[in-house]
């Protein structure tokens, strides 16, 4: 089995050192060939030096690719095209992996029936959920990229997150690469390139595996545990959802491209927000409002863009 770990980075040399140090300490069976492909997405800091240092310390383990086009999806797709490993695992530059992360994440590939796998993403050090945040669903903590479905391994029915997932190469030939209109880039926080890809894989009828022993620890800067950050994330998530095309079949009743149902929903959730008393309930409703606002904005923008391109085309 040949495995490539793909790690895209942008101007985060300091945390990159820690990420690389942890993945360098990975314990793999001797017969497994594996490499780490660092895709420098046009960084202007000392990222190249950091990677070079690891290349010297661990010969043949680390590869460096420079991708000048900004945007995480561009970097990811570049790495997919430039490697030929059978298994592609993905991690980010702001996590530290367990020494057996890669081993546990990829062991399911001994079973031909599985096309991909996802592991657990835990906070780096004792994370205390603020009072306004009720952690009831696995997606409540999605804004800080936590992913924890418990300690039982089994089939995974929802898309894994991009900092702890692995797929067979054939999945990319089958379902295509990461969408370039999604994924963070300088000036845009619209993410979802990972979950959108995972959805495509699941819809294609492929099976994914959830492996709780494949653990990565995600750094959570304090500024991310603020309501402001969470709300911005949900707004961006709403925009990403529309880009993914969740309204394509749902409705034909639209005003300037915005499905009417969205206005009704935002009114309902806005009222609930104003009428709620408990802080966590208020936050839940508020997050919904922000999410719907993102969807409305993106629906509107898309139609404007279509109009403009129609005007230009003839």
């Amino acid at each position, binding site marked *: 089995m040949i495995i490539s770990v793909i790690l895209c980075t942008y101007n985060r040399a300091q945390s990159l050192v*820690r990420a690389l*140090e*942890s993945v*360098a*300490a990975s*314990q*793999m*069976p001797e017969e497994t060939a594996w490499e780490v492909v660092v895709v420098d997405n046009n960084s202007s800091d000392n990222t190249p030096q950091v990677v070079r240092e690891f290349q010297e310390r661990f010969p043949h383990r680390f590869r460096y690719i420079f991708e000048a086009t900004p945007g995480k999806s561009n970097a990811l797709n570049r790495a997919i095209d430039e490697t030929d490993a059978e298994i592609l695992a993905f991690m980010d530059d702001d996590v*530290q*992996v*367990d*020494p*057996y992360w890669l*081993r*546990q994440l990829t062991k399911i590939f001994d079973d031909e029936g599985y096309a991909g796998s996802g592991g657990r993403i835990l906070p*780096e*050090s*004792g994370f205390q959920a603020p009072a306004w945040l009720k952690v009831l669903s696995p997606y409540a903590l999605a804004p800080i990229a936590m992913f924890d479905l418990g*300690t039982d391994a089994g089939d995974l029915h929802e898309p894994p997150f991009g900092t702890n997932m692995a797929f067979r190469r054939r999945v990319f030939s089958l379902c295509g690469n990461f969408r370039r209109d999604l994924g963070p880039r300088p000036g845009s926080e619209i993410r979802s390139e990972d979950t959108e890809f995972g959805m495509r894989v699941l819809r294609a009828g492929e099976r994914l595996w959830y492996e709780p*022993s494949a*653990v990565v*620890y995600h750094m959570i800067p304090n500024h991310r545990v603020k309501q402001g950050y969470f709300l911005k994330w949900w707004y961006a998530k709403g925009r990403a959802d529309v880009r993914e095309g969740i309204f394509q079949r749902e409705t034909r009743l639209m005003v300037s491209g915005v499905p009417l149902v969205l206005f009704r929903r935002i009114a309902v959730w806005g009222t609930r927000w104003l009428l709620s008393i408990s802080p966590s309930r208020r936050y839940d409703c508020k997050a919904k409002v922000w999410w719907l606002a993102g969807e409305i904005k993106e629906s509107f923008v898309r139609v404007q863009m279509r109009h403009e391109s129609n005007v230009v085309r003839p």
Partner: protein
Amino acid sequence: MTDISVILCTYNRCESLAKTLGSLAAMILPPAITWEVLVVDNNSNDQTATVTDEFRGRYPVRFQYIFEPSQGKSFALNAGILAATGRVLAFIDDDVVASPRWLQNLTANILSGKCSGAGGKILLDPNFAPPAWLPVEGPLSLAGMLAVFDLGNESRPLDRPPFGTNMAFVRTMFEKYGLFRTDMGPAPGSEIRNEDVEFCRRLMSGGEVLQYEPESIVYHAVPERRRTQEYFLQFWFDHGRAVIRETGERSPVIGIPHRYLSIVKAVYWSIPVSTLRWLCTRDTKPRFYRKGWVWMLAGQVSEWSRTASGRRTGSRAISETASRGNLTRNAQTARKVIEEPK
């Protein structure tokens, strides 16, 4: 003052030492906590110094090197304790790999003053492919014989001593209870271990609280010599002896010492029945488990006949006392995993 000193004793194992240090270099700790790793080279004659130097070069204050010429793990441990500057001392061996949160989870409750010491989980190296005959899961699991320490997922005060490759104490414990006993602990030519368990027993009988930290995980390598059937059968045999020593003499029946009755019962009933059961089992894993059961009964018989003939005199008695610790520890480890086969 440093918050945490990690003490790592090593002897001629530079290859696995590099793995251990690599995992320590990737430790996650809150930025406010200062910590150091003391590598105590116990008179190695391989590349140990070079391997350590590489890490010292990269992390100058974090990694430190001490040379201890007196051979024996307890000497090395004590040298590390005396050189350490940390308020909390954590211990790890050169044949394990630590998970990134190991140190933080092991020491958090000690640093906050909740307990005087702690022991974490020791799991098998996930890359270890057990031989076909070796059960490592389920009710027949023999993982306990490979120095696995896993008391579940709940943090609670320990009711048994933790193992030396994953434990930590407040520094003052060593001032209060003394250092590790140098007549115990592995040394070239001696496999008598137990220096860790003996120290923890001293603390526990002094009423100190040692906390079990399930989130503090190290993965233990399985060396070649422990992958053989002989190793496990010897373990069963010793376990059988240890069980008898621990339970002690039972009251005589109509004037006949109980051990004679036990020998007769074992030789004419338990051993033949268990042997038959072993030979009639076709599935390799339960078959080996049942074979081990016979070895354990043989160990019991050997221990009964030893006490019966009363041969313990002179130098023999000393070596017996010394190896007793080892046996007791084996018994402790194995108690959880060895149940009567159904």
